[in-house]
């Protein structure tokens, strides 16, 4: 009996289960996959569960966090109240949530695409850096170009830089069977050193050199490439809108184009995909390349939307937290929108909480880790539900034949 998902984390390995190997020869299972790929009818129960369960996971983690807070002689109620206040209780807080959600969404979109092809992309950090470097070098070099030209071209260049950083592990996997977890971890470190190299020398702000401070940051980017601020006196920039639009674009890509279909097929059933003529390694390499591109774009918007220059530490771990956001969004581009906002709010609220009760920031990291642990564990019930529905539908389908 197959257990496969449309919208949840992929559990494709069960196709190698002996009992299903017999059945995979039967046409029903393959047509089941085909049905999965083609069906676009919404399963509302699934959606509700995908929202409730991660929320439950978050709450359980926060309860444990409350115990830790008590042990640190902090008031958990005041702490969590501050957390909610910080994330959504003020205009500034709300915009901060969206500012954090933007790179989470962009990285998460890339993770989504990769995960759908059953490729895990933990190279986000390096890909963000690649995009950020490109998004710094390009406007500084073409500093006289007008904004309407410079902004989209910078985004393009940054996307391509990230894509290259995803392409390298992708092609290594496709051609030479180099595992992508290994190559992306290495590429992360290489990208970091590359950024150090540039910031120590060619990209270092000439003003910092002249003043003798030698700070590890680039010159400020020309004003015309700065992304417009959507709300005055906040950091919310138009990159958020770009990310939102791209989420829909990725949805259309995955569900309405042939290539997207192939990527999803490869993730659901690599063997069947191969038999039907899809080049599995190419699809996986492509998904990794795209994932890199989106992460690179996250680097771009951080540079031209938030920081207005390149400086160390700008990845802020988004390469990893983007993976968490993708899971919270059930690996669906549209689900990623609320998921990244929720997770962004959690991150913003956590900082406010730290300020309010003055606990060490390490406690926040620990609580967030528990959140990730419990949320990832909560996905089980979502999959069981999906499987039960799958079986029920197949039974109904059989009955109606």
């Amino acid at each position, binding site marked *: 009996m197959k257990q496969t998902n449309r919208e949840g984390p992929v559990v494709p390995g069960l196709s190698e289960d002996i009992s299903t190997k017999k059945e995979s020869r039967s046409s029903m299972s393959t047509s089941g996959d085909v049905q999965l790929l083609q069906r676009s009818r919404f399963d509302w129960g699934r959606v509700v569960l995908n929202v409730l369960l991660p929320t439950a996971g978050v*709450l*359980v983690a926060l309860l444990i966090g409350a115990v830790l807070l008590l042990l640190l002689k902090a008031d958990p*109620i005041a702490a969590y*109240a501050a957390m909610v206040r910080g994330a959504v209780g003020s205009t500034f807080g709300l915009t901060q949530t969206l500012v954090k959600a933007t790179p989470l969404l962009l990285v998460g979109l890339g993770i989504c695409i990769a995960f759908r092809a059953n490729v895990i992309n933990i190279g986000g950090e390096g890909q963000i850096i690649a995009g950020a470097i490109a998004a710094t070098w390009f406007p500084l070099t073409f500093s006289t170009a007008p904004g309407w030209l410079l902004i989209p071209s910078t985004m393009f260049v940054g996307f391509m830089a990230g894509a290259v950083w995803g392409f390298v592990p992708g092609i290594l996997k496709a051609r030479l069977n180099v595992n992508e977890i290994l190559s992306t971890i290495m590429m992360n470190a290489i990208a970091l050193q590359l950024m150090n190299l540039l910031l120590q020398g060619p990209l270092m702000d000439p003003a910092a050199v002249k003043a003798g401070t030698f700070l590890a940051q680039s010159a400020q980017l020309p004003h015309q490439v700065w992304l417009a601020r959507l709300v005055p006196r906040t950091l919310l920039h138009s990159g958020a809108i770009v990310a939102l639009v791209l989420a829909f674009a990725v949805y259309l890509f995955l569900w309405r184009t042939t290539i997207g279909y192939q990527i999803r097929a490869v993730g659901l059933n690599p063997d069947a995909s191969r038999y039907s003529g899809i080049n599995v390694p190419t699809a996986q390499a492509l998904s990794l390349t795209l994932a890199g591109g989106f992460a690179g774009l996250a680097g771009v918007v951080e540079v031209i939307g938030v920081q207005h220059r390149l400086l160390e530490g700008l990845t802020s771990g988004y390469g990893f937290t983007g993976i968490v956001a993708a899971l919270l969004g059930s690996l669906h581009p549209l689900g990623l929108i609320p998921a990244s906002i929720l997770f962004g709010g959690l991150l913003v609220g956590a900082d406010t909480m730290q300020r309010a009760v003055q606990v*060490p920031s*390490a406690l926040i990291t620990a609580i967030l880790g528990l959140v990730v642990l419990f949320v990832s564990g909560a996905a089980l019930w979502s999959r069981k539900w999906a499987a039960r529905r799958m079986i029920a539908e197949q039974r109904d389908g059989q009955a109606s034949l």
Partner: protein
Amino acid sequence: MKGKGVFRLVGLAIAVAALAIACGGSKPAATAAQKPAASAAAVKQIKIAVVMPSATTDAAFSQSMWSALNAVQAEMGGPSAMEIKYSENMYNVPDAAAAIRDYASQGFDIVIAHGSQYGSSVQEIAKDFPKVTFAWGTDVNTFGLPNVYAYTAAAEQGGYVNGVLAAKLTKTRKIGVTGPVEVGDAKTYIDGFVQGVKATDSSISVSKTWTGSFSDVALMAAAAKTQIANGADVLTGSSQSVVGSIGAAKDKGNVLWFGTQSDQASLAPSLVVASQVYDWTAMLKDIIAKHEAGTLGGITYTLTLANGGLKIAYNPGYSLAADVKAAGDAAIKGITDGSIKVQP
């Protein structure tokens, strides 16, 4: 069956959370109501907030400001005279910006943005809070704003002095430098150090290694061990990961260490000769005084040997030969009176 259990759990959790928020909402108002009465009765309490890019326990940059703040607070009479709130590990700049803005809007008198990457944030936020003093470092730019102070440390000065001492103490005539990334005050300190060594004896060889990270302690320790294996008997370096180098020196047993940013004598009581200490206390007291007097910003502070912001803390646990100390003191005097010029 399992599904039902989950929903019950979720419902309970939501109820608890809702209760928490409902109760929590009233608390801050209560505390706010109490505060003004208390401070009106006593001397006006000064409220200072600090945002830092690393931990308060980093034995380096952040810790130097943290201990200075606590020292000033103790001198002023404790928390009733000066309230300190902090946010650490703010390496994400937008998060730091949110923290800076939050503290400013909470009515803090002085907000210290202790990280050079916070510059553009300070520039934006300071305009919105004209009555709040913002102190920003390490940099020299106050953005022309009347409520921004900038501060930096002329780390190359202490580096020079350490270099002079190191040159006099090395027996193998090989000195090792273990640095993180060649930027900021790591660069300026080490450049000053090398100048000090060369000015004392240009035939001594100084070799530098850079680990490419401010936090990789293991690699820093390996770098120090490599220097030692190459014959270096005096080491120095910068950043919080330099505790690894000190450990390596301790392992070998007879390798001397020169520190910077904070007094590192406690880490190797018999091997640390001297440390350049960033003493922000005088600057902090000056900023507080100026703020009370109505000058909210506009000055750049530079810690130097001359103004006492930089101190060379000789380790009492290490018995320093008199002539070596004399050379060190002479270097300090030379930099102070301007006869020795050290390039950052």
